[in-house]
């Protein structure tokens, strides 16, 4: 029998006293897509870093193409030379360089015309994976949107020379639905060329659509492995240890909602937004749906920090708090502890005479930490992504604001944290606080009372109660042209 492309056995790694990987096994054949799943903190990212050479394991074996790899001297550079290309979850592009220059970093060209050569490579790579992306290879990465950066990152990883194994960690977290389709088409093509792919994702529908086999990790150990055929979304979910994520629709009827508006927005116009009209009532959970980049985030930013021109379009009562999904860039204070990170939005309440009342602050932090099952003492940087997101959530809730703005807070978060988040939302329903919630996972909107679907900077549809469904959201998210085309096909 032919040796598998990649064979990882008995892989172990600890950070200090806490083991992250203990005796993990993973095999990938050529021409195969293996899904690597697990709740946050299961060790997926650590395993991938070991495979990519970015992290030395404590012990374990790794074989590539039947050749044992000396893990003591294994480095990212060696991994590249052996044809292992990793696309990291946290984007690793240099924002001050152009797209082509970022390609140069991983694929140096030794010739006098290296600039031109890199531009050609980058252009071809982008076109291969994401046709008509419209991304200029000479544009600086800092001028690109998050989705565009992710596309560049993926294209760069996929274009690695002598590629044998492509590792993708949450590759679609910022991508719109049709871009995910592009990626999947490309991966199927790559698979035909005999290349092995490791696909890490929390989006189970995507996993079911693209992978051949799955390996599930839990708590740093192998939990389950097998063919994906015959598995359904809920089967995977129960293997992952998540409860049913999507809750039944429990929208309040009109008289149950206290019809007092907390936020009203009339004819708001900005370069990114076009004539936005919306209202949020007290105790309501309002969703903001649509394709990534349709203006949802811009709208949240305008509501939270209106510019001089948009201020007139907004009328709001009470305080507003913001919970971001971009925990690295705009979220946490990494040098502070968990409790200080939580209470920072409530400081004015905690310091009536200018000085912070210590006991009150500790109480508040403690209350939210218990509620969100956060352990005190550890530093922010040592928390997993899901737990960092919980800290941000706790901060938003601790502000006790009248309106909470959620900016895709469950981006790349494990199923456990998600279901806890949903039950927290249920607790808020009908309370003094209202929520405005932007998400990239359409299924999540089932928890909302109302959903505004956005499209190209406008609100294309308001969905209420039972009409909130993934089908409806998708229908109103896509541009009409496309719908017309589909209709014609039918």
């Amino acid at each position, binding site marked *: 029998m032919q040796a598998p492309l990649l064979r990882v056995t008995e892989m172990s790694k600890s950070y200090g006293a806490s083991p992250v990987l203990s005796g993990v096994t993973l095999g990938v054949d050529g021409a195969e897509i293996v899904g690597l799943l697990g709740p946050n903190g299961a060790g997926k990212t650590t395993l991938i870093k070991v495979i990519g050479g970015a992290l030395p394991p404590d012990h374990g074996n790794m074989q590539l193409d039947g050749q044992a790899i000396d893990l003591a001297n294994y480095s990212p550079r060696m991994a590249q030379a052996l044809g292992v290309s990793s696309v990291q979850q946290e984007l690793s592009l240099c924002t*001050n360089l152009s797209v082509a*220059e970022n390609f140069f*970093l991983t694929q140096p060209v030794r010739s006098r015309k290296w600039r031109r050569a890199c531009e050609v490579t980058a252009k071809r790579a982008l076109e291969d994976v994401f046709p008509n992306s419209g991304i200029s290879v000479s544009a600086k990465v800092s001028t690109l949107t998050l989705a565009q950066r992710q596309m560049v990152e993926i294209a760069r990883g996929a274009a690695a020379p002598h590629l044998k194994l492509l590792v993708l960690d949450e590759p679609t977290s910022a991508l*719109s639905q049709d871009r995910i389709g592009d990626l999947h088409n490309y991966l199927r093509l790559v698979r035909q060329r005999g290349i092995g792919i490791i696909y890490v994702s929390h989006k189970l529908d995507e996993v079911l659509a693209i992978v051949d086999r799955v390996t599930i990790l839990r708590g740093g150990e192998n939990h389950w492995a097998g063919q994906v055929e015959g598995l359904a979304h809920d089967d995977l979910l129960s293997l992952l240890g998540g409860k049913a994520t999507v809750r039944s629709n429990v929208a309040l009827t009109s008289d149950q909602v206290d019809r007092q508006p907390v936020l009203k927005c009339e004819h708001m116009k900005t370069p990114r937004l076009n004539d936005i009209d919306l209202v949020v009532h007290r105790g309501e959970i309002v969703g903001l749906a649509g394709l990534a*980049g349709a203006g949802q985030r811009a709208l949240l930013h305008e509501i939270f920090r209106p510019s001089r021109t948009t201020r007139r379009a907004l009328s709001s009562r009470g305080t507003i708090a913001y919970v971001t999904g971009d925990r690295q860039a705009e979220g946490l204070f990494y040098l502070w502890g968990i409790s200080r990170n939580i209470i920072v939005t409530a400081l004015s309440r905690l310091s009536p005479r200018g000085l912070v009342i210590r006991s009150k602050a500790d109480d508040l932090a403690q209350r939210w930490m218990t509620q969100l099952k956060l352990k005190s003492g550890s530093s922010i940087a040592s928390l997993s992504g899901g737990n960092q997101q919980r800290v941000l959530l706790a901060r938003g809730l601790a502000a006790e604001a009248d309106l909470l703005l959620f900016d895709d807070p469950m981006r790349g978060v494990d199923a456990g944290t998600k279901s806890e988040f949903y039950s927290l939302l249920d607790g808020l329903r009908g309370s003094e606080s209202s929520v405005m919630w932007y998400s990239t996972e359409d299924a999540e909107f089932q928890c909302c009372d109302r959903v505004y679907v956005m*499209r190209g900077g406008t609100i294309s549809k308001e969905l209420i109660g039972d009409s909130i469904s993934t089908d409806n959201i998708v229908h109103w998210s896509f541009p009409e042209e496309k719908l017309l085309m589909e209709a014609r096909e039918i």
Partner: protein
Amino acid sequence: MLTTEESQTPRRFGEPANGARRGQALFEVSALPAFLFCAVVVVLIAITEPDTMSAFGIELLLTAAIPAVFAALAQCFIILAGDIDLGLGSAMGLANVVAATLLVSHLAEGVAALVGLIAAYAAIGWLVETFHVPAVIVTLGASFVWLGIALIMQPEPGGTAPNWLSRIYGLVLPVVPEPVYIVIAATGVAYWIISRTGYGVVMRAFGNRPSALTQVGRSRLRARMGLYSLAGICVVLGGLAVTAVSFGSDANASATYTLSSIAAAVIGGAEFSGGVASPTGAVLGGLALAFMSSLLSFLNVSTNYQSAVLGLCLVAVFGLRRVLKRGGGDS
């Protein structure tokens, strides 16, 4: 409903268009305030002292500004690495003293000492990268070392410029005065290294995100030491320029270049977060600051007020930069 912008471009829905801005151009928008500042000062000089716009006048003005140009370039490289050099002025003072004493009496030893200074800069880079000591602390400490060595070598101002150096700075070149060539050549070479060479990309990548270099399997140490060595070379060239311009040396005379070089680089569009610094902008900033001192002297502004006026101009330029940045930003 489609906006006009969307219907014109073939890009897909939900992905905002982006301008086809070049990766790093010779002259970026970020260098605009420095250019404007420089242009305004030159115009004001031309109005107050029309005589300076002769070839000889330009030569005098520019010659006096050459040390500032090299200082700005040196600081530009350090800021590119995400650091700040607080010992730059003293290091230039040391190079100045070496050039006016040792280099005159013992050429070989003098050259060795200057090369040693460049190596010392590389060593500072090594220290910062390996031991994670903040660069401000290391360079601040180093500044006292430079000053100490310079004062031991030459306690009182004095010395002379080596003959060959004076000859180089006294060349008569066609079309425009020599200092113009020096400034353009220095800017061009620095720009070429940073923006046109492959390793320039690596060094810029390092300044932006050091961890990215680890991810692609490149040495962070090499990148930082490379940038510090380039800074060291500019410091030595700056020290030589001071010697040639002042025909002698003074250990303390170059101290002002520390802060003015930081100001020059920042006026020129450099970001303290690292990875963003334009040699063109830094040079324009350095020239503007040097011309500004000349202008204030022409206007008979008392030296007591000169710093204050300079400071106000800096605030104005930073303000302009801020406005431009917001206008050019993407979100």
